[in-house]
């Protein structure tokens, strides 16, 4: 896909996120929107997957370690054709297959249940190990929050991945700088992120999370790097695309009301207009 096509898709993914969280009257829009371009790139460009056969043996795998941003994953999966986009409105509803956090038994395309922070990366490491043991060439991607890397298990998993030279693993950190209680550096600084992963034998790339050229280059860099896993630290804007949500920790886990929903969808419609003219 061209960057313009990816940008258009990402905007659709963002509309799905906002609509899902609005319909649920709960959920996590901020971190879903900050990672929307990455979700889009992974599911529309990067990963070897088949929506018609979600459990295909040699598919690439994705683990949403920051599971609270399920609306982002669900919107990408829906837009990619795993299930109807219309169903995003059932998010968090009683009986819905779109649970508040990803559930692999309920939702087509979800490779691992997640949501308890720090655990998804370990599962991704296990998938990467299985690939190495079976000499398969599928790749494994996992997305973590920058607040999430305060969890010690993240570093247990990173130590293992680095020690086992898992070059089929890509760990992506969504560095939007905000967690529930405020800025990550104020709550309990995670910085420098890059040096930490380097110390665990990772190839580390820092990119702008909203620039598809940089995302593409980072993924290529990861694929050509042998003998070590890659960490992509992506500098992002929490709430990206919705004016009043951008860089606002208050929108970590809150749903827009009727008026706010309208503004959000207007914001995204304006982006559509800009992309049309591009």
């Amino acid at each position, binding site marked *: 896909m061209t960057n313009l096509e990816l940008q258009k898709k990402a905007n659709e993914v963002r509309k799905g996120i906002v609509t899902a969280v609005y319909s649920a009257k709960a959920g996590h829009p901020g971190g879903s929107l900050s990672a929307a371009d990455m979700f889009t790139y992974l599911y529309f460009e990067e990963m070897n997957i088949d929506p018609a056969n979600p459990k295909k043996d040699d598919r690439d795998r994705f683990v949403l370690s920051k599971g609270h941003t399920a609306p982002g994953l669900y919107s990408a999966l829906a837009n990619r054709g795993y299930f109807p986009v219309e169903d995003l409105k059932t998010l968090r509803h009683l009986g819905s297959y779109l649970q508040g956090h990803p559930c692999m*038994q309920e939702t087509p395309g979800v490779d*691992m249940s997640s*949501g308890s922070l720090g655990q998804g990366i370990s599962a991704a490491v296990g*998938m990467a190990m*299985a690939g190495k043991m079976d000499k398969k060439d599928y790749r494994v991607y996992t997305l973590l929050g920058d607040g999430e890397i305060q969890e010690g298990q993240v570093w247990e998993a990173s130590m293992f991945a680095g020690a086992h030279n898992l070059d089929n693993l890509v760990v992506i950190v969504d560095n939007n700088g905000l967690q529930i209680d405020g800025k990550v550096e104020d709550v309990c600084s995670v910085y420098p992120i890059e040096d930490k992963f380097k110390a665990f034998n990772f190839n580390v790339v820092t990119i702008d999370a909203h620039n598809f050229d940089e995302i593409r280059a980072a993924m290529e860099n990861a694929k050509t790097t042998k003998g070590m896993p890659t960490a992509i630290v992506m500098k992002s804007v929490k709430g990206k695309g919705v004016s009043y949500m951008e860089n606002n920790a208050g929108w970590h886990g809150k749903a827009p009301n009727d008026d706010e929903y309208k503004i959000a969808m207007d914001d995204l419609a304006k982006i559509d207009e800009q992309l049309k003219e591009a």
Partner: protein
Amino acid sequence: MADIKKIATRESYGNALAECANDFPQLVVLDADLAGATKTGVFKKACPERFIDCGIAECNMTGIAAGLATCGKIPFISSFAMFAAGRNFEQVRNSIGYPHLNVKIGATHAGITVGEDGATHQCNEDIALMRTIPGMTVIVPSDDVEAKAAVRAALEYEGPVYLRFGRAAVPVFNDEATYKFEIGKGVKLRDGKDVTIIATGICVDSALQAAEKLAADGIEADVINIHTIKPIDQDIILESAKKTGKVVTVEEHSVIGGLGSAVCDVLAENYPVKVKKIGMNDMFGESGPAAALVAKYGLDGEGVYKSVKEIL
């Protein structure tokens, strides 16, 4: 009695894993720097390409196992019960239990028979923790024969299983040639009309010894081995309780949440009778030789005998 063979169930565990390696090509064994103690080292020697040492990081090991299971492997993760079930509880619940992944947890050094290491390493809470997880099967083998059979049964079963093994050598009383293990099926070891003794793990042997002493006093005890705490065999418990009207449970575990509680759940809802629970009474253990601790806390044949006499 001197020629009774004694084997620690952790030895049986390691041996069983190695014996199952060829029959289960998807089997992968993970450990957290305790392969020598948990005896997964036996498997490592037989099958090094399917052994993963995760280092001292049990929570990560659990997640890795979950990831391996999603790719079709059958991982067995091993550590001491304290870490496999205790430190790891939430990882087991959310990364294995919730997605109902086909991961087996081989927890060794359970209970006070850890001995000299003392209370920090004597896990008397693991059965309680593990049986609260929806869909988790919990198995506590009583001897070498049962432990080996349980490992194979766990591999044949699809879904998460917690298996509890001990550090200390314990008598082998089951007959390998005739013993049949079935998950969820209790085993009647002795028939009696006066009292029911239900035991699990290494305490099954204590129950048998107590029954022997009781018989000398003219008291006939029904002795039941509940190797599967969950799903528990309701029928065998109710049938015996209806016959004797008195039940004693024995376990190397807290009386809160373990075998005794599971038996009480069954009886309270179906056929209430008086129950005495023998186990660790809401307390931590301490350092000492395993046999001395078992005696001190009333889990040996003599202790069980005395407790049964109290309820009669």
